[in-house]
């Protein structure tokens, strides 16, 4: 069960009318290493992973939804007032034809989100290493999106999200260490 707090995890400010960047931000919305993939991946892996790391997956999976909400807010702000012409100039003409100014779970190239982006292998190490890789890929994606905009307010929100990826990868690395340890085993010498 979840408790919803009706505010963003970090304030989202967009100070430049630039729908072009919305098209790139969609990668973190419905892309392979985006926030939706991350949330669903972690919250699904929880059921078949040792008890001691279930809480970590719950916490991080939940936070990913908070990040998803921030990305959605950024995309919404960048596109909500765009005319069909502006959408087309931003490379979003096909998006407008299909979705008007609505958001949709797809990547920056317009490919719809698919569960094939995520995996649950049932092996704790395989799953945790996938999670670490996903965090590092998301961090890299944030870097390249930050490189694509000169809006410092938008960069500010993206830099926050990028730092969270670093912290999450750290926690998953720690989960790997916990899985490797065998402190509960009775040792007879």
């Amino acid at each position, binding site marked *: 069960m979840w408790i919803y707090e009706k505010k963003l995890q*970090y304030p989202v400010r967009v100070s430049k009318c630039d729908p072009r960047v919305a098209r790139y931000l969609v990668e973190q919305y419905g892309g392979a290493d985006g926030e939706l993939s991350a949330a669903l991946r972690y919250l699904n892996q929880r059921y078949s992973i040792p008890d001691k790391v279930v809480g970590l997956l719950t916490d991080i999976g939940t936070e990913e939804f908070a990040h998803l909400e921030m990305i959605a807010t950024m995309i919404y702000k960048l596109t909500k007032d765009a005319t069909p012409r502006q959408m087309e100039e931003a490379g979003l003409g096909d998006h407008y034809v299909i979705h008007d100014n609505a958001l949709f779970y797809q990547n920056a190239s317009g490919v719809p989100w698919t569960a094939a982006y995520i995996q649950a292998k049932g092996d704790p190490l395989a799953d945790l290493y996938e999670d670490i890789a996903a965090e*590092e890929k998301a*961090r*890299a994606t*944030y*870097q390249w999106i*930050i*490189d*694509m*905009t*000169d809006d*410092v307010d938008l*960069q500010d929100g993206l*830099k*926050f*999200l*990028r*730092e*969270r990826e*670093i*912290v999450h*990868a*750290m926690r998953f*690395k*720690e989960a790997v*260490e916990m899985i490797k340890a065998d402190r509960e085993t009775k040792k007879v010498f």
Partner: protein
Amino acid sequence: MNAVKPTRDWYPFVGPFDPCPPKYVKTYYVPPNQFIPYQPMNLPQFSLADALRYGTLWPALYGPYESKCSPRGSETGG
């Protein structure tokens, strides 16, 4: 450790018949989590206001990144 800088450089092969002006140095970022196998107890902390702004409570995990897009829109770095 990232004692000096958080990036690493490498020098890709430059061929005599490359069609575009070559980049002689390529750079990638190495986040601080790569140097901490398991976070020790009682590390120094940011103030709560700074922690919110930076996205982490821990200076040891803070790895900032600056945009390669300058305010005037021209590209810098590489």
